[in-house]
């Protein structure tokens, strides 16, 4: 059984993830040499990309829009902060682990309740919960440092003491470390969205009634997606705090949640790679816009323009360039390559 079909390689093939990672790997030394100052922005882009990737399993694949994922950015950041302040931990790997575990625990605690709601109810409920945590970081200032936050000096990476590295080497190592994490987490996410779980999540998003009718447990599937996204965003939260060298309540504020939503839609939530592209480009646009007084106005105008002109996100430009391809394929190969989702 061989069939000739028109496929969209951008969605079908994991190779485009490799290409993006390769481009990002090559870009850093160039940016570092010729665009001083922007290298930090690029590192931020990578970290936010991890967050947006996790966010999109919930939004793009499962159809649950959360306005409160800064909750997990905050948890990841404060996990790192508390580990340093109270346990004297100085290793990046442990921060990341701590961020992931803290997010997972809280997500488990609230998840089984929140995933019973959908659409605007889920979005607002998440916003409210995230704001509660944000206010706790302020109120319990003797633990959290209040608005001053907790300073996080450069931690050891892969057991290499941070003191033994000069600033530039450390920046390089941190960048490639984050990029490697993006690659690993991206690969795992790719496997997940193309597995039975991915199909089930998309089925739930698509037609909830029929999905439950063929025997899927809707709330359980939504919970899986919720936990997964929490872990990804938690990891990004730890990295973000380390890169900023401080964790303040602002990282857990609703504007951070909005940022994740913004970059995902900017890149294209209907595509696996959309959030990654969106996150990186968003950080550059934001840095440029922030030089002006009314930078939020600029950002707002940009998202309106993008939704009007490119409703599928920035990635649709790349899609147009690559185009659709006619390929001969067998269903078996098809599953190994992954499914389409538009």
């Amino acid at each position, binding site marked *: 059984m061989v069939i000739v079909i028109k496929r969209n390689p951008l969605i079908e093939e994991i190779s485009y993830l490799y290409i993006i990672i390769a481009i990002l790997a090559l870009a850093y030394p160039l940016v570092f040499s010729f665009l001083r100052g922007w290298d930090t922005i690029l590192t931020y882009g990578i970290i936010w990309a991890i967050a947006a990737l996790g966010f999109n399993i919930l939004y793009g694949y499962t159809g649950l829009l959360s306005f409160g994922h800064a909750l997990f950015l905050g948890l990841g950041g404060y996990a790192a902060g508390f580990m340093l302040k109270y346990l004297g931990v100085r290793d990046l790997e442990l921060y990341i682990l701590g961020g992931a575990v803290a997010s997972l625990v809280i997500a488990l605690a609230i998840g089984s309740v929140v995933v019973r709601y959908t659409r605007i109810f889920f979005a607002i409920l998440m916003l409210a919960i995230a704001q509660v945590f944000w206010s706790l970081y302020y109120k319990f200032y003797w633990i959290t440092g209040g608005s001053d936050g907790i300073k996080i000096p450069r931690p050891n990476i892969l057991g290499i003491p941070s003191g033994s590295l000069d600033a530039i080497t450390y920046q390089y190592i941190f960048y490639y470390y984050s990029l490697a994490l993006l690659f690993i987490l991206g690969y795992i996410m790719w496997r997940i969205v193309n597995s039975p779980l991915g199909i*089930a999540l998309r089925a739930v998003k698509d037609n909830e009634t029929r999905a439950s009718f063929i025997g899927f447990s809707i709330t359980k599937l939504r919970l899986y997606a919720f936990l997964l996204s929490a872990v990804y965003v938690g990891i990004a939260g730890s990295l973000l705090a380390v890169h900023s060298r401080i964790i303040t309540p602002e990282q857990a504020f609703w504007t951070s949640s909005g940022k994740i939503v913004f970059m995902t839609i900017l890149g294209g939530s209907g595509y696996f790679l959309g959030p990654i592209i969106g996150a990186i480009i968003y950080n550059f646009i934001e840095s440029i816009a922030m030089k002006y007084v009314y930078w939020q106005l600029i950002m707002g105008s940009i998202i309106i323009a993008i939704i009007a002109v490119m409703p599928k996100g920035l990635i649709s430009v790349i899609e147009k360039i690559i185009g659709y391809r006619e390929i001969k394929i067998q269903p078996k190969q098809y599953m190994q390559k992954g499914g389409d989702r538009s």
Partner: protein
Amino acid sequence: MSSDSPVLLELRDLRKSFGNVRALDGVSFRLRKGEKITIIGPNGAGKTTLVNAISGYLRPDSGSIIFNGIDITRKSPVERVKMGIVRSFQLVSVFNNLTVFENILASIISRKDLLRKPITPFINIEDAINEAEEILTLFGLDSKSHLYPLDLSQGDRKLLDIAVAFALRPFLLMLDEPTSGVATKEKHSIMAKIYEILDKTGTAGIVIEHDMDVVFKHSKRIVVMHQGKVLVDGDPEEIRKNDSVKQILMGEIYA
């Protein structure tokens, strides 16, 4: 099916009223393993109510439903699906953003409980994929497996809808007007396909159908319903000769 195969489904005096309307007024019949019946009757005869009662979407006021020797009258729709009673609806309900192939696969994933293990992204699902291919071939949709449902003809969408239900491997498949909204030419081929598949796999079937040409051409046993009661239950020849059926059914439709 042969008359000595065991009874799969038994309805005992099912009754259901909506206000003053008696939608089911003492319906009783038996269905053997692998047997197929077609239910006909004028609008409001209680056909869909009957299917709703068997699939668990409606609870009858009285009477009982015995499936495989177990009283399922009080079981939930999902429990009944797990026991092997699967139905389709009058309107096509498939996953429009999943390919034809993935639509089938979704059913198989659910039936095989492939999501139970947390390491699901890394388990081998070769069996499920092979089975999805088999089912698509069975329904003649194999050449369309990578299209999206909205790219299919209405007839193929109907078939896909039935295939998604069939992929749950039911003992009893109930189809509510599987050919509604389909061109006459396609009706016969869809019906032939459905009966062929049910025969081949030994699945019992309850089909609601309006088109008399289709009914008499493909059915072996016909149950005529009228005002919530079973009027006649027999083979097509009997039904054709029955005067009251002529009056009620043909009169209404062809008058």
